[in-house]
């Protein structure tokens, strides 16, 4: 069954998101590391939207749809911000030393490493990011 989590483009809503992910974890009987990873992935996706998707100061809705079918979790994040395809974002070189490592750029990388698939499409002026993970 699909579930919707609706949040605003405000970083103060992240704790609310964490609560919702914990509820899902209980309902789907996920282990703690999986809940933590899903929480992390959603925090990275949502904070990117909150910080970079909007040039105006208006309130926007970000829709998160979650669904578990057999052994697969599917999360879809939809926002009406400017077009942004995270699958096209350059991968940071994680083999670099501390001196050479860039500060930042890790968020999307973590999403791609943790999830099994990350797909992006732009439809009806909206960014639709679909993430899946086998459990």
């Amino acid at each position, binding site marked *: 069954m699909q579930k919707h989590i609706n949040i605003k483009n405000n*970083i*103060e809503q992240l*704790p609310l998101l964490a609560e919702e992910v914990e509820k899902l974890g209980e309902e789907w009987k996920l282990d703690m590391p999986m809940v*933590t990873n899903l929480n992390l992935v959603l925090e990275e996706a949502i*904070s990117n939207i909150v910080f970079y998707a909007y040039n105006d100061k208006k309130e926007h809705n970000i829709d998160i749809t979650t669904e578990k079918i057999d052994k697969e979790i599917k999360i879809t994040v939809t926002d009406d911000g400017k077009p942004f395809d995270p699958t096209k974002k350059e991968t940071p070189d994680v083999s670099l030393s*501390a001196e050479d490592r860039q500060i*930042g750029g890790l*968020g999307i990388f*973590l999403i791609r490493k943790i999830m099994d698939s990350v797909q992006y499409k732009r439809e009806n002026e909206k960014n639709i990011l679909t993430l899946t993970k086998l459990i």
Partner: protein
Amino acid sequence: MDLTTSKKGDFTVAAISGRIDTTNYNEFETQIMDIIEKGENNIILDCENLNYISSSGLRVFLITQKKLMGTKGKLHLCNMQPAIKEIFDISGFSSIFKIFNTEDEAMNG
């Protein structure tokens, strides 16, 4: 997130508890930078009770490492929970930081 500091030998041990995420990483950064600015050059970050970190928190770890490298200081991490260690592994941070199993090992490392 809470940070409790104590002095042990040549090290300042800062025990982190709770979550470091996008809503509070700047608080964590300010507290760590305060410690460094007070002249503490050798820092152990005890991660035993750190149960969540996102990229914004990882960023502060990297900034701290860079800062202490500049002052020829030491940054040792210890007592990391497996889920946090996994995030460090994925990010390539496990090879950037000196990570020890226990605080004693971190003191002698």
